């Protein structure tokens, strides 16, 4: 009797065996793993580009193979972290969060590699690329791309209202006045895009920077003392009052139908957008439109650009660090950058390719180029995954409390939400 049970058990184990991943180690050729997200305007094009890049790199480096895994963007960072925890992390991965998780010890410090291969960030990358992946003076990643935020405006709506288009050097006060002028609720027409979700006022970064504030400390670890300052309150009030006082923001329902780019509905005069939305506008807009730099605080202040970059990182536990570095260097270098630009998937990370393609002279892309060359800051949402976990909900909470619950003690709201977010940040960073 016992024997039979053992036979069954053995059979069961045998049946399960093929389930486990079998990893064959090839001695001659090194295989590195590359994890990235499919996020992009065109999933298929983004997917294809990943494979084209990997194949082109392999052609140039015959002893390195790249195994690609593409994931949905949601929870991507968790996936990377859990894989690393299981000692199965990717050699190279691509995401948006910043290097402040370097303290957790799973990001490889790339500074020595960069010095060894003579890569000089200030010569090849836009300012955002030089700041984005730096933590305590060390580089932990290389920029995948570079994009900028600016304002898109609907020329048809401006013309119909007989209002001149916004010009570079305009101010937040002018922005607000234009929004009021162009709102006509009878005609279902609104001055600015919808302010909903955590994004509502968070993507206000170009404004908050220009309004002289930031909601997080430069290292991304402190919200109390940033989120709740008088300057932040002013920026907050500016954003929230567009909805409640001025009533110039598009209704939230419009977003259900058109998605975040409600500008495409043709019912919105101005919306804060970035490079990523340009192809969609080019293809789908049924009206004339233009773009302009984000408004400045007043005539006397310099505008601060709002720029953005994804980055490629290396796992400190990688078993093929040299090969992984070769790949990172190549990905951030001109050949890969040119391929991505020509595929129309990612805007290049440095001025060279932009100039090569004549984008710096383009009436639309030229605005982005000018922003990318300006003084910039790392936008608050780029700072870390913990920003999404902790501070993003605070943005939504302030919005809900002000707009939906009708609370008006902004300072108290900000203080409370900042405290909660701070608790979460402290806990996440392990302080």
């Amino acid at each position, binding site marked *: 009797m016992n024997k039979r049970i053992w036979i*069954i058990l053995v059979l069961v184990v045998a049946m399960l065996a093929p389930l486990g991943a079998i990893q064959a180690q090839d001695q001659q050729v090194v295989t590195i793993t590359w994890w990235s997200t499919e996020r992009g305007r065109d999933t298929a094009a983004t997917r294809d580009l990943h494979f084209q890049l990997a194949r082109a790199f392999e052609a140039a480096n015959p002893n390195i193979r790249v195994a690609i*895994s593409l994931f949905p963007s949601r929870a991507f960072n968790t996936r990377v972290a859990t*894989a690393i925890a299981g000692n199965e992390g990717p050699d190279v991965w691509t995401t948006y969060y910043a290097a402040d998780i370097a303290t957790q010890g799973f990001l490889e410090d790339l500074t020595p590699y960069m010095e060894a291969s003579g890569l000089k960030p200030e010569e090849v990358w836009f300012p955002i690329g030089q700041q984005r992946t730096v933590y305590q003076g060390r580089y932990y990643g290389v920029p995948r791309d570079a994009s900028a935020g600016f304002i898109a405006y609907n020329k048809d709506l401006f013309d119909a209202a007989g209002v001149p288009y916004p010009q570079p050097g305009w101010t937040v006060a002018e922005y607000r006045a234009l929004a009021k002028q162009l709102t006509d609720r009878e005609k279902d027409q609104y001055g600015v895009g919808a302010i909903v979700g955590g994004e509502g006022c968070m993507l206000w970064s170009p404004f908050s920077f220009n309004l002289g504030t930031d909601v997080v400390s430069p290292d991304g670890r402190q919200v109390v003392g940033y989120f709740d300052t008088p300057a932040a309150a002013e920026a907050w009030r500016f954003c929230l009052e567009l909805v409640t006082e001025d009533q110039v923001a598009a209704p939230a329902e419009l977003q259900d*139908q058109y998605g975040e780019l409600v500008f495409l509905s043709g019912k919105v005069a101005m919306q804060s957008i970035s490079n990523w939305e340009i192809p969609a506008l080019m293809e789908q807009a049924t009206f004339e439109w233009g773009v302009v730099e984000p408004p400045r605080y007043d005539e006397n202040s310099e505008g601060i650009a709002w720029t953005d970059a994804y980055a490629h990182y290396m796992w400190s536990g990688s078993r093929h660090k040299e090969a992984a570095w070769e790949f990172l260097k190549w990905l951030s270098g001109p050949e890969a950058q040119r391929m991505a630009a020509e595929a129309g998937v990612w805007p290049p990370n440095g001025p060279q390719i932009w100039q090569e393609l004549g984008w710096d002279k383009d009436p639309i892309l030229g605005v982005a180029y000018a922003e990318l060359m300006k003084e910039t800051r790392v936008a608050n949402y780029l700072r870390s995954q913990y920003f999404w976990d902790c501070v993003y909900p605070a943005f939504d909470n302030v919005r809900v409390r002000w707009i939906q619950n009708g609370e008006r003690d902004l300072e108290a709201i900000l203080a409370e939400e900042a405290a909660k977010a701070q608790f979460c940040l402290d806990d996440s960073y392990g302080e």
Partner: protein
Amino acid sequence: MTTISGHFPRLGLRGLRRFNNVSGYTVLMVLAAVFMVPLYWMFSTALKSPQQTFAIPPEWIPAPVQWDNFSKVFQEVPFGRFYLNTFFLAFVNIVGHLISVTLVAYGFARLRFPGRNILFLVMLSTLMIPYHVTLVPRFIMFSKLGMINTYWPLTLPAFTGSPFLIFLVRQYMMSIPFDLDEAAYIDGANRFDVFWRIILPLTRPALMLVIVFTFIDVWNDFLQPLIYLNDPDMFTVSLGLSFFQGARETNWNLLMAGSVLAMIPPLILFFFAQKQLIGGISVEGLKG
């Protein structure tokens, strides 16, 4: 019926029954509508174009009907792959449960050993403790074993049985007369023979339940695949569907088409196994 007749003396028995039937059916129909309307809404949205989806007032019957939404779902996400993965997981889990649950249930139902009752109580009490307290250590255990992003964490536990199913099958086995075992032992059978040749065939209806419950559990499971699986090629239907929600902002028609596709297999199974399933759940209800 006799109980009610005193209540409506003037209607007479037949009239009363007709009245009762009409009101009974009305209530039944109204309730059915309440339960079915969200499902109908899901189906109709699944067959709409984006414009139809956002029409005000809504189109109750989409015209024209967009059948190709379903094929679009397969193009947008590897839904076929999700299906295969989930069926595979369900299959392995079912095999695991069939082996482990029957063995354990037999042990508890038909064999005597010291501590049996205590162990059985311990097993039942695990039903009362939320398994989520084990979630974090289990995850750590599997991650240290390098089993993240494999199917091991989603299959291995099935081979150790499930307390609820063991309970169910054990109750069923208890109802089989012991004379059968005695007779077999007299004929020289050993315990495994009795288990394999006598008890197991008689337990078949309960095994049906094991299969159905396991399938539905695996098909519905969301938290575990969410935690353990990284590679989209390994995703289950539920997990894939949730990512579909994240990836597409406003394609409610496709999202609903995906939801329809996700509910078809359990529904089919449900229709075939209705009797056992509802009967089995009643058993569950009786143990209180």
